[in-house]
């Protein structure tokens, strides 16, 4: 059976080769149970480094201009990239 592993990387700019500033893992194989605060070191230094290690990019956040009046608000992390690996279990 094939199962999906998901890696989410948040980058310092909208470029895929920018530095990783936050990350999450979700494991469809059930072999690991990633959780909030389970590590201080990012799995890769950049988004491209994840590609080089075999992760496949399947979604990237859009560039959306700020709503008028909200130009100086900060909120969610802006540059979000979803990767997957398909793994035989």
């Amino acid at each position: 059976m094939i199962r999906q592993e998901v890696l989410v990387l948040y980058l310092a700019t909208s470029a895929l080769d920018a530095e990783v500033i936050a990350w999450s893992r979700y494991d469809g194989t059930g072999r690991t149970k990633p959780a909030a605060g389970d590590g201080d070191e990012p799995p890769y230094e950049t988004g491209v480094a994840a590609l080089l290690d075999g992760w496949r990019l399947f979604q990237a956040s859009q560039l959306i201009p700020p709503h008028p009046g909200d130009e100086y608000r900060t909120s969610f992390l802006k540059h979000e990239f979803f990767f997957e690996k398909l793994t035989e279990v």
Partner: protein
Amino acid sequence: MTSQGPGPERRHLLTSAQMARFVAHGSHRMDAVVPAAMNERAISVFDAGVPHARDGATVDEAYPPGSFVRELLELPEIAGAVHSLVGPDPLIDHHAVHIRHARNGEAQPLHADAIIDTREDAFDVQLMYYPQDVTLDMGGTLSVPGSHLRRINETDTGRYQNVRGQTRLVCPAGTVQFLHHGIWHGGRRNDSDITRYMFKIRFNPTVKQRLLWNTEDLAAPEVLAELRTRFPWYENASGRIEYLNRSRLWAALTGDPAFDLDYWSTRVSNRPQRVLPVR
């Protein structure tokens, strides 16, 4: 902490540099500030339960003289920090004993408490008291320095598991930290054999939060240095906006609407109105 009396001595108030650090980090930490004798009593007190206080109770109503929590709040360093951050006579929004059982297997999603909060010139603080030594595998509170001014709603940040520069609390017994209401945080998974306790109180201010601390060092260079702190998780662009929002909070806290850290606000608000005659 009562409505009577002169309040904490100046030497127990936070300094301007410490307040600036709070504005930048969204937290103030005091290691081992609670005496060992109180820490030893704390867990039995928390196991017995701290009586419920109504939302918005005064300190006198919530914690009668002689009670454990009142004793905690009357420790000079804690009373000084509370006064500096929210002023005299704060109200008790709520309190809670948080217990992360040994090998509990679950972590809270990263979140901010309550609901999205748009105040720019006022804030609540949450006191978090750790009566035990907290080791890394006990799942001490996860928090993200500098996240408190981002407008998010509760667990909408739950997708983020780890953030570069995050704090995974490891501390000696008797440590207290004060967190800005907006900070992203969560109880981590307890992978140890020791049940972990934390007692939390959220305080609401009842006075304008302006110059409530020891302001002797208000003009010291350390103040601006603290306000310029850049955290490793900030995006290149949004990180600049954080400086602007910090400036606004510092302007509110000091009553100086012209305060602007490194010209960020001045530059983008410059709209000259002087019209020259046509030549």
